């Protein structure tokens, strides 16, 4: 766009000035706080640099928190991907009425935002000790969930609860990729004599693979950073990284404030890796699915 009044130099200055408020805000409330954590992870309390905090993570309780968190995120991401993919494929390829699809997408938008404290309450009222389903199974069928080893306040209970927002997120993220599969590819495969299974195994899934893996990474990061649901469900005892960090911020439970920085730094590294993988794979998948 031609700009007749301003000279090249003043235009340059003026243009960048327009971003100043945003840059300042991002610096103060996003970049600097994060940098503080990252730098703090490599500092001693008096300010000199050290790797001591990172080594300090190598204790049984912290390592097991990371292991449990990573397991929880891997399992909920995998199951979320599986069920979400099946449901999205069902409404897109299953010859169901279009209204069903619209309904599922709208509901997914709601459910993926219905995380946090209320979600924990909803599951407590359903699968908790006196929940609707628990009582119903016991009185109608004589099935005692607790005796069978299911406890909502345990690792697998948390998996079930997390799936409530993981599956909808998967549906929302994978539906556009499924829409991108061209009808011609399927027709071409059929003309060449491929069965449905062969079409999926040799055509559709390889094309979808980057999108699937990318969404898996996104779901992983989504559950890795989540705390409110788990906190409302199990309180501060459960040994996952966000809850451990919460307890540390509340009152130095690790006995060394800079160990908290290292704990948070570890979280950033893991979610950043997962999101980096997601972005890289999304770029790759868009090559085919435009």
């Amino acid at each position, binding site marked *: *766009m031609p700009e007749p009044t301003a000279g090249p130099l003043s235009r340059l200055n003026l243009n960048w000035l327009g*971003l100043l408020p945003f840059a300042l805000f991002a610096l103060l*409330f996003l970049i600097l706080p994060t940098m503080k954590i990252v730098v703090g992870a490599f500092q001693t309390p008096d300010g000199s640099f050290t790797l001591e905090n990172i080594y300090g993570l190598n204790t049984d309780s912290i390592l097991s928190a990371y292991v449990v968190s990573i397991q929880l995120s891997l399992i909920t991401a995998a199951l979320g991907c599986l069920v979400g993919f099946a449901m999205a494929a069902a409404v897109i*390829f299953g010859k169901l009425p279009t209204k069903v699809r619209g309904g599922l997408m*709208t509901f997914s938008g*709601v459910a993926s935002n219905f995380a946090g*404290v209320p979600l924990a309450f*909803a599951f407590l009222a359903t699968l908790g000790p006196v929940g609707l389903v628990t009582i119903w199974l016991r009185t109608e069928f004589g099935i005692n969930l607790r005796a069978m080893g299911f406890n909502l306040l345990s690792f697998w209970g948390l998996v079930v609860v997390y799936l409530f927002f993981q599956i909808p997120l998967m549906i929302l993220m994978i539906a556009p990729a499924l829409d991108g599969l061209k009808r011609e590819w399927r027709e071409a495969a059929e003309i060449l004599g491929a069965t449905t299974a062969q079409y999926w195994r040799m055509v559709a899934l390889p094309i979808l693979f980057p999108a699937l893996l990318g969404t898996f990474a996104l779901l992983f990061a989504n559950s890795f950073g989540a705390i409110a649901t788990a906190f409302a469900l199990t309180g501060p005892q459960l040994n996952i990284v966000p809850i451990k960090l919460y307890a540390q911020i509340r009152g130095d439970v690790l006995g060394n404030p800079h160990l908290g920085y290292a704990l948070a730094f570890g979280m950033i590294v893991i979610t950043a890796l997962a999101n980096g993988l997601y972005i890289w794979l999304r770029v790759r998948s868009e090559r085919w699915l435009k």
Partner: protein
Amino acid sequence: MTRFFAWGTLLFGCTFFALPLIGMTEFSMRMLREGYSFEAYRVVLMDERFQQTFSYSVLMALATIIFGIILVVPTAYWVRLRLPAARPWIEFITLLPLVIPAIVIVFGYIRLYNTSSWLPLTGSSTGTNLLLMFGYVTLSLPYMYRAVDTGLRTIDVATLTEAALSLGAGWMTILTRVILPNVLIAVLSGAFLTFAIVIGEFTMAALLDRPAFGPFMQLLGANRAYEPAALAVIAFGITWACMALIQLATRFSKHTQAQR
């Protein structure tokens, strides 16, 4: 055959989604022994702390939305008009809150702005409120920026600006009377999502010790039986309402696009 499997998968999934919703609704109405009632809702809604924390969170959400609009709309507009080269960078920054967990961001706030720091925001309740609002603006950046940017894509920013400039409008007038009304519907969908997020947010408010709705829900959940289920129903209703309003807003924006 395919259709049979499709319905089967869908029904299986929908049962999983329906049960907790049915469970919480049923449970929330069981407070009185003699039968179903809205007693839990009455108790919750009459609770003074509910009223205080809920109105606190509503005010916070509104402040977050207003500040977010003031911050994001001019930035997105300016990037589209004059600095298209900066777009990937701004987009990257606005997506960072999805990468860095909220608990890490607020941890940084507490260390950076504590009472002995250069900007002691956590020293006073006004300062902490302000800090919490900035935190919420940060959390809502990914949604707000993308919504506004999508809205700007549907209008011809350069021509509108030139027309307004040649008619003698200043930048303030252009932003408030030309650009904002044109992207208002897109801004609204970002605003409703921000509202839904802020109302139930737990981590930031709890760690900054603010009397918000999220921590109150958690506290009630730890101490009571039926009221939390009623709160969950109310929270779900709010999420539904926000999503319905977003749908409504996007439907309106499609109409304006079709007319052009």
